[in-house]
C-alpha cells in the first residue's frame, strides 16, 4: 500500500467515525418557518426563538420547565422599591470566539434594541426599563440615558420605570440577550452572517441554508459545555405538517414542534407516548365590537358567549383536546394562581342556551327579530371549522351569521381598524405573567380590537402593575379579570395547547406552559 493510499484510507476512516459520532448526537428538529434572522433583535416567531435561545443566553435563562434560572448572571439583587436590579455576571463567561462577555455587552445590546434607527420589532417588550420607550420614540436621543449601566465588567445595573414583578421573566426573552459589541462594531449589519457571528449560548451556528435548515454545534467556550449531552442541532424549515410527520416516521426528525391535529388519534395508537399535547400559555378568542350596536349591549355579548359550547371544540372539532376557556388568563400562568372565571361556567350547556335566549330577548332579538352578525376569521382550516360550528351554535338563538374569511394580513388589518363585528383572534404569551393577557383589554391598547373600555379595569391594571407584593398584585389583577368577564369584554373560547412529537430516544423533554425546550436540557439515547 503506498503512502497516498494509506493516507486516503486513514482519513476516510476518520471521516466516517467523525460523521458517525456527529450524527449520533445531533438533534434533528422540525422547526416550521424560515428564520427571519439570527440577530436576536430582529426576531418575532417561536421558530426563531428555538434557535436564538440555543445560541445566545441572557442574564436569566430557562430551565427544562421554563422557570427562570441564572444564565450569564450568577446572582442578582433587587432594591426594596423593586426598581433597581443589580446582576453579578458569572466568572469566565466568553463569546464563542474566546472574548469575555462583559456587562458592557449587555449595555450595548439594550441600547441597540431601543435605538429607533435599528427599528427592532420587539423593542417594546423592554419598555419597562427606564427611558427605553422615550429613546425609542426619539424623545431622548442620548442612549446613555437608558436605565442599563455597567458598574464594572462583571456588574450590571438595570433601573426600571416602575416595579415590574415579571421583569426576570422578560429577561429570558431574546430581546434581552447580550450582543458581541466587538463583532457588531467591526462587521456592521454583516455581524450576523455565518462565519462572522459570535454567540454566548451553549451552541453556535455554523450553517444556514435559507429554506432548508440552520445547523448549530456545541460552543466550547460556554461555561457548561462539558455537561452538554447533545453535540448540536439541525433546525429544519418545513411548513407542511403532513410532510414533517412523514419525515419523523422515517426517522429523519427527532422532534416535531407541531403536527396535523387530525393525525392525533392515529399517533396515539401508532406512536404511543410520542405525541405531547400540553397546556400552553395562549388564548383563542373572539373579539366583539363593543362600540357599535347591537354588540354595545352587554346582554348580546354575554348571550353569544354563553351559547358557545366550548366543551366540544377541543375534543371534537379540533381533535387535540384543547381545554375550554372560561377565563381570560390561562390557568397555570406565573404570578397568578387560579384565574377568575365567568359566573355561568358550570351551568349545564342546555341552561346556558336558555339563559342566552332570555338575554337576547331582553335585548330585543329573537326568532321574530333575528340578530344578524358578520364573523371574520383569517384563512385556516381550523378557524373555519370553529367558525362554522359556533355559527351553528348561535343559530338556535335566532342569530344569523355571515362568515367572512381573509388572509392573515388583511384580517389583522381589519381588526386593527375596528372594521369588525365579531372576529377571530389569538394571543400567545410573550412572557409568563397575567399582565401579558390582561393588557389586551386596556383602553387604547392596539390589541384591544373590540374597543372594550372600562376605566375601572384600566385603573386596576395600572394599580396591579405598581404593586410589588405578588400576592396583592394577583388579587388586584383577578378583580380586573372578573370585571372584564362579567361584562363579556370578549369571548374566550379555548386555551391553546402545545403540540410536539418527541422520539422515544430523546430524554429530558418536559412539557411546559411556554413550550420552550432548550437543547441543553435534552439528551439522546443510543
Amino acid at each position: 500500500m503506498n503512502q497516498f493510499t494509506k493516507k486516503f484510507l486513514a482519513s476516510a476512516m476518520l471521516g466516517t467515525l467523525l460523521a458517525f459520532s456527529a450524527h449520533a448526537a445531533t438533534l434533528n428538529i422540525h422547526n416550521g418557518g424560515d428564520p427571519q434572522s439570527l440577530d436576536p433583535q430582529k426576531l418575532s416567531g417561536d421558530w426563531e426563538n428555538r434557535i436564538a435561545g440555543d445560541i445566545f443566553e441572557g442574564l436569566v435563562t430557562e430551565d427544562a420547565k421554563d422557570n427562570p434560572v441564572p444564565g450569564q448572571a450568577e446572582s442578582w439583587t433587587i432594591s426594596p422599591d423593586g426598581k433597581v436590579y443589580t446582576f453579578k455576571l458569572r466568572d469566565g463567561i466568553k463569546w464563542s470566539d474566546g472574548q469575555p462577555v462583559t456587562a458592557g455587552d449587555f449595555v450595548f445590546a439594550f441600547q441597540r434594541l431601543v435605538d429607533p434607527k435599528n427599528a427592532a420589532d420587539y423593542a417594546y417588550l423592554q419598555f419597562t426599563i427606564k427611558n427605553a420607550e422615550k429613546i425609542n420614540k426619539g424623545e431622548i436621543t442620548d442612549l446613555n440615558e437608558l436605565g442599563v449601566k455597567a458598574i464594572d465588567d462583571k456588574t450590571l445595573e438595570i433601573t426600571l420605570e416602575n416595579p415590574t414583578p415579571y421583569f426576570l421573566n422578560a429577561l429570558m426573552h431574546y430581546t434581552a440577550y447580550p450582543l458581541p459589541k466587538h463583532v457588531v462594531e467591526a462587521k456592521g449589519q454583516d455581524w450576523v452572517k455565518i462565519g462572522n457571528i459570535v454567540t454566548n449560548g451553549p451552541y453556535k451556528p455554523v450553517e444556514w441554508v435559507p429554506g432548508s435548515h440552520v445547523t448549530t454545534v456545541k460552543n466550547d467556550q460556554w461555561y457548561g459545555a462539558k455537561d452538554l449531552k447533545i453535540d448540536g442541532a439541525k433546525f429544519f424549515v418545513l411548513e407542511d405538517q403532513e410532510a414533517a410527520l412523514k419525515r419523523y416516521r422515517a426517522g429523519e426528525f427527532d422532534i416535531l414542534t407541531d403536527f396535523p391535529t387530525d393525525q392525533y388519534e392515529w399517533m396515539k395508537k401508532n406512536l404511543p407516548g410520542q405525541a405531547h399535547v400540553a397546556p400552553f400559555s395562549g388564548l383563542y378568542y373572539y373579539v366583539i365590537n363593543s362600540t357599535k350596536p347591537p354588540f354595545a349591549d352587554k346582554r348580546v355579548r354575554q348571550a353569544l358567549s354563553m351559547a358557545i359550547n366550548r366543551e366540544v371544540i377541543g375534543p371534537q372539532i379540533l381533535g387535540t383536546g384543547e381545554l375550554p376557556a372560561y377565563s381570560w388568563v390561562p390557568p397555570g400562568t406565573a404570578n397568578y394562581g387560579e384565574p377568575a372565571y365567568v359566573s355561568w361556567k358550570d351551568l349545564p350547556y342546555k341552561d346556558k342556551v336558555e339563559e342566552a335566549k332570555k338575554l337576547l330577548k331582553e335585548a330585543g332579538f329573537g326568532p321574530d327579530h333575528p340578530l344578524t352578525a358578520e364573523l371574520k376569521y383569517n384563512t385556516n382550516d381550523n378557524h373555519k371549522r370553529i367558525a362554522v360550528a359556533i355559527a351553528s351554535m348561535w343559530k338556535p338563538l335566532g342569530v344569523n351569521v355571515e362568515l367572512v374569511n381573509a388572509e392573515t394580513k388583511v384580517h389583522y388589518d381589519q381588526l386593527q381598524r375596528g372594521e369588525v363585528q365579531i372576529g377571530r383572534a389569538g394571543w400567545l404569551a410573550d412572557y409568563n405573567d397575567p399582565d401579558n393577557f390582561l393588557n389586551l383589554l386596556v383602553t387604547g391598547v392596539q390589541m384591544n380590537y373590540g374597543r372594550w373600555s372600562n376605566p375601572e379595569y384600566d385603573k386596576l391594571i395600572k394599580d396591579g402593575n405598581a404593586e410589588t407584593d405578588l400576592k396583592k398584585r394577583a388579587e388586584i389583577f383577578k378583580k380586573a379579570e372578573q370585571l372584564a368577564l362579567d361584562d363579556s369584554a370578549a369571548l374566550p373560547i379555548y386555551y391553546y395547547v402545545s403540540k410536539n412529537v418527541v422520539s422515544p430516544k430523546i430524554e429530558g423533554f418536559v412539557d411546559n406552559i411556554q413550550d420552550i425546550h432548550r437543547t441543553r436540557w435534552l439528551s439522546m439515547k443510543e
Partner: protein
Amino acid sequence: MIKYALRRLLSTIPVLWIAVTACFFVLRLAPGGPFDGERPLPPVILKNLAIHYNLDKPLIQQYLIYVGDLLRGDLGPSFASEDFTVAQQIMIGLPYTFTIGTAAFVLAIIIGVAVGCLGALYQNKTPDYILGALILVGVVLPNFLIAPILQLIFGIHLAWFPVGGWGDGSIKYLVLPIVVLALPHAGRISRITRGSMIEVMNQNFIRTAKAKGIGPRLTVMRHALKPALMPVVSYLGPAASYLLTGSLVVESIFGLPGIGRYFVNAALNRDYGMVLGTVIFYMVLIVFLNLLVDIAYAWLDPKVRNR
C-alpha cells in the same frame, strides 16, 4: 439569428418596466402591510420600521428609489428575511431549484418522448392502452397527492429514499422530488408526441421510407422523430419556465430550499421587495427560455430558419 435574438431581448425591456411598475403599485394598494400580523406593533416601532424601509416617503418617491436601485442592479431588501437581500436569497435558492428543475425537465422529455413514440408505434394496441393509462395517472393526479403517496411507499415503507430534505445533495435525496415534478410534464409530452407522431407516420415521406424497406425503428428515429417533435418543442418553453422557477408544492412537501415558495410566501407576507424581485426574475427567465425555444424551432424546421 443574433440580430433577431437581440431585438427580442430589447423589446422585453418596456414590458419588464410596465410589469414592475404595475406590480409595485398594485402591491401597495393591497390591504394589509408587511408589518401587520397577529401581534400588532406599537406605532413607535411601526414608524421606525417605515423609516428604515423608506415606507414613510410618498409612494412616487418610493417608486423612484426602487427603480433607481434596480437600474444599479439592486433588488433591495427583503422584509421577511433581514439577513439576506432579495438578490442574495434568489442566488441561494437558484442552484437547488435549477438542479431539481433541470433533472425533472430532462426526465420528462425522455419519458414523454419514449412513451409517446411507443404509443404511436403500437397505436390502439395493448402497450398503447397500458402506457396511456399510466400517463393519464401522471397527468390527472396533482403533485400534492402523488408526493405524499411516493413518500409513504418509497420513503417510509420501503425506505429506499429519504422522505424529504436536501441532505448532502446526493441522488437518493433528489429522486422523489424529481419524479413528482417530472410526471405531469412527461404525461403531457407523451400525449403531444404520440399525436404528432401518428400524424407524421401517415405522411407520404414516411410511406416512401417504409416502401424502401426501412424497419419501423429506423423510420421513427431517422425520419419521423424530428418533425414529430415540433409541437413538443412549443410545449418545452412553458414547461421549462415552470420547472426552473420551482414548484411551491414540491419544495414545500419535500422541504427543499429552492425559490418556488418565494413568490407565494412573499405575496402573503406583503414582502414588497421579494415579490418584485421574483417577478423580475421570472420574467427574465421566461424571456430567455422562450428565446431558446425559438432557436430550437429554427434548428428543427429549416422553413423557420430561412424566414
